[in-house]
């Protein structure tokens, strides 16, 4: 009571909260919320970077035209077997998600996520230009495809390698700590250092890989300018770069598995690979899902590796979505179209963030 009486100048709890929240809310509103909505607004305009810079009125409202110009085309039709491989995988995925859920092998969330992804995989590749038709933007969907190929190689690569390493390094000894440090070290380098190293590693004339193959009589591969190897080179670089976080997350997950389980299994003669298969893997399901979702979010936004090592080439084989957005905006000055693509990216990333949130929540329970 004394405190309250003496403090007319003191802030109430709400006022204090307001004062403390203000700095963050101000920067947040100005540099994240406002730009986000402004991005949507730009995507609805025909907006040339240079023209608008000189004359702010040089933009024109075009509604959803930018989205159409990026993602649609003339005479687009849909066929159940337009790209059979992907669509059949989609159908199998739909069947698998229903089956696994019925059997009670997976949780509801996993089943729904798998189901939605499979339906999309069945529906989306079915669209294709019909007779005399074409995509308005011939490069957009191939670019999305390249990004997906990159994700499809990197994410399993990182996940499997990190899981095996974590299982091997899961002991609190000096030697294991040193190994962990070594494997984690590449993770903290910047993308420009990583690409600098690997650009020269892959160089056919000066590269370490070429030097070694030549010693053994092989002819060097022109990694970064050969259509068959450019994507592989970027994938190898990325796996080397981003293994660390995944390994650490797995090590944390392994700590939570009770030692008793392994002791009980040892009594049944399940050690080594057997214990890994029957005890480690089932108990790490959550962590594995989390790592995969995180890696998808991270790798889908790949930019520096493609931008610095291959310039998206050769022949657009390593052109990825963020690089295409960057080029459309800052080389072609087409901010409207680039913003429409950025919104496309946001929707995909948003879906995965929600998935990450849901998986994280399940973790807490």
């Amino acid at each position, binding site marked *: 009571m004394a*405190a309250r009486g003496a403090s007319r100048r003191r802030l109430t709890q709400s006022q204090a909260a307001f004062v403390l929240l203000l700095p*963050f809310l101000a920067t947040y509103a100005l540099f994240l919320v406002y730009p986000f909505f402004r991005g949507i607004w730009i995507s609805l305009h025909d907006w040339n970077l240079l023209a*608008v810079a000189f004359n702010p009125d040089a933009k024109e409202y075009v509604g959803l035209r930018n989205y159409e110009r990026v993602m649609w085309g003339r005479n687009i039709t849909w066929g159940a077997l337009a790209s059979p491989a992907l669509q059949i995988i989609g159908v199998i995925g739909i069947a698998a998600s229903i089956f696994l859920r019925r059997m009670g092998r997976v949780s509801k969330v996993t089943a729904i996520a798998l189901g939605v992804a499979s339906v999309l995989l069945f529906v989306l590749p079915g669209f294709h230009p019909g007779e005399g038709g074409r995509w308005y933007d011939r490069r957009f969907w191939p670019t999305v495809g390249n990004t997906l190929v990159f994700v499809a190689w990197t994410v399993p690569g990182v996940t499997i390698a990190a899981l095996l390493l974590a299982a091997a390094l899961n002991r609190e000894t000096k030697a294991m700590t040193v190994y962990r440090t070594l494997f984690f070290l590449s993770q903290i380098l910047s993308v420009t250092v990583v690409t600098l190293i690997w650009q020269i590693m892959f160089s056919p004339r000066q590269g370490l890989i070429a*030097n*070694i193959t030549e010693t053994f009589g092989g002819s060097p591969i022109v990694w970064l300018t050969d259509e068959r190897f450019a994507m592989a080179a970027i994938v190898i670089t990325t796996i080397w770069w981003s293994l660390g*976080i995944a390994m650490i997350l797995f090590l944390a997950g392994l700590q939570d598995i009770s030692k008793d389980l392994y002791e009980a299994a040892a009594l049944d003669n399940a050690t080594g690979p057997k214990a890994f298969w029957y005890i480690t893997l089932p108990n790490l399901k959550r962590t594995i899902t989390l790592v995969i979702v995180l890696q998808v979010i991270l790798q889908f*936004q790949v930019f520096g590796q493609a931008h610095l090592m291959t310039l998206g080439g050769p022949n657009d084989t390593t052109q990825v979505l963020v690089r295409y957005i960057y080029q459309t905006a800052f080389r072609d000055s087409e901010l409207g179209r680039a913003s429409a693509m950025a919104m496309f990216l*946001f929707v995909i990333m948003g879906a995965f963030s929600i998935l990450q949130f849901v998986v994280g929540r399940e973790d807490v329970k």
Partner: protein
Amino acid sequence: MNRGYYWLIIGLAIPAFLWLVPTLWMVSLSFQPNEVLARTTSTTLFGLIPIPFTADNYAALFSFGQTPMWFLNSLIVAVGMTLGVLAVSTTAGYALARLDFPFKNAITVICLIGLMVPEQAVFIPLYTMFADFGWHNSYHALILPRMAVPIGVFLMMQFFKAIPQDIEEAARLDGVTWLQIFWYVMLPLARPAMMTLAILTFLYAWNDYLWPLVSAQRQEFFTITLGLASIQSNFAQSEGLGRVMASGVIASLPVVVMFLIFQRYVVQAMTVGGSKG
């Protein structure tokens, strides 16, 4: 310790060495003369051992060229961003975790929903905004956008929530104000979390590429990460391979040293950053 364990150590030595080779090679090349490297990069043991040895590349780096300026820019941006993020995140995190105020739940959700927005989805509108303000090519243009990212608020909020309630109540009974509690009681307790957040932010600032690439067009405002990108495309002709590699080593030195000293915090920071940011 059984025999299996020793075999494991020996077996892991091979992948660990392979993992280290690219980094070792960069360091080794940076200590070899440019004239030799122009001929072959494979002098001693595939170039992994720097013989013939020279430190000229580093001397050249600091006597002329722009690397020292870029290095300084990176330091200014990274320290500025770290202090800024710490300031807005600790205050907001404390308010959201411990204080009661109208619309608290709604404000919390609004603050954290921004975690869903990737940098790549807002860099174009941010570019036009900063262009309108005439802010490009400045330190604040490189620092401010990251201060708006809610990861720090989330981290600090989680931390403050875990502190027992009675600490505050005792202080309130003594007539201490909320802001004093925040400053004298909560902040000292929050040091480990602040350390994690500081390292996360510093690493991000030091290694960020996309936003500096868009915002800093003049070389005077390049960060070292951006500067390195600008010289690596034509390394062989103009600068000499050894010198470019020396720049790469210098660019990595602060984060590697930080990693080796504060390993526990770095790992924690990257885990948090990776799983929420």
